[in-house]
């Protein structure tokens, strides 16, 4: 095993990590999973290259894969919760097979379905999400040991020859801010951010 074991990593904060990521961005796409993941993405400063999900739990990585395939020259980040990823673990195999080198996946793992009442996920304390990613064929998968390591892994992913997955253990603090919940507006702005649509 090449990765740091989950239980050896520092427990960090989603909003802090999201801010650290956004501070590094220019025109990269970011797909925010449902709930707190995209609330924090929004609160870190709206960008037209951000896509905010309002449902479809577990599809942040597949949506990001679609963006990455359509625009291979643009770096695409996806922010997903551990509970969401559990719903769609098969997508890791799909992404490993297609191997888009412009895709960086971040899994925010706090072991709970936080937004629905903080119930533990079935994986909490047992399954290691980075190990699952590695076993799915995503060789560039690792836990971030702390905030500096997270930033290092983000930078490293930009140079990787295949897709990267970064696991981060986070606390149970609720998301900051709330995404404006207008799906058509979200999509139009995102398409504008992707350069395929002009806003009127």
């Amino acid at each position: 095993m090449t990765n740091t074991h989950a239980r050896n990593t520092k427990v960090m904060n989603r909003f802090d990590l999201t801010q650290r990521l956004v501070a590094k961005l220019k025109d990269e796409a970011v797909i925010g999973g449902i709930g707190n993941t995209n609330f924090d993405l929004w609160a870190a400063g709206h960008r037209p290259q951000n896509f905010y999900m309002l449902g479809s739990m577990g599809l942040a990585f597949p949506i990001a894969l679609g963006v990455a395939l359509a625009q291979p020259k643009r770096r695409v980040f996806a922010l997903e919760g551990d509970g969401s990823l559990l719903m769609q673990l098969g997508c890791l195999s799909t992404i490993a097979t297609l191997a888009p080198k412009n895709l960086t996946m971040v899994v925010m793992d706090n072991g709970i379905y936080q937004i629905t009442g903080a119930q533990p996920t079935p994986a909490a304390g047992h399954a290691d999400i980075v190990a699952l990613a590695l076993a799915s064929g995503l060789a560039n998968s690792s836990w971030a040991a702390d905030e500096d390591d997270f930033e290092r892994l983000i930078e490293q992913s930009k140079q990787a020859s295949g897709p990267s997955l970064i696991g981060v253990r986070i606390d149970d603090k609720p998301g900051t801010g709330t995404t404006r919940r207008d799906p058509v507006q979200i999509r139009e702005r995102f398409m504008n951010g992707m350069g395929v649509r002009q806003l009127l």
Partner: protein
Amino acid sequence: MAAAEQASPQDKATWHGIVLQTLKRNEIKLVPYVPDRVLTTLIKNLHADPYFTTFPTAREEEAVGIVSGAWMAGMRGAVLMQTSGFATLANVLASLAVPYQIPLIMFVSERGTLGEFNYGQALVCRTMRPVLDSLAMEHHTITRLDELEFIADRSIKQAVATQAPVALILSPLLTGGKTFDK
């Protein structure tokens, strides 16, 4: 019909040849799928044609997410599945394709009808059209080879123009369906 002339007579004579050419003519390059035996030849031919990026996914929802992301980033796609796969999609249709107004194009190979032997497939099939109707989604069941190109081509163009999903249900009357030899 510009690209139609490039189609071989063989392509034009088969339902899968027409589907492939119609996808191409409408610049649909990305075709993720969860397979069905009936779709085998179409999938094989999509893989063989470098125009298409085609690959299996673990679930149909995943394929819908992928083509939705691709469309928002400027690349058109369509999803292939069978009836039971469609039955897994209600959530993603109601929370992604419909509210975000995404021209999701789905080809659904119809199981569960016209001689189906599997009771589970038969029941699942009966959930499909009520789900489509409850979301006010456009859908057509294609039964005739001579109507396939018209329905598929126009439906794809309508989906793109109106930014609305569409399901094209491929009836066993069109495809021959599954061979029931057990």
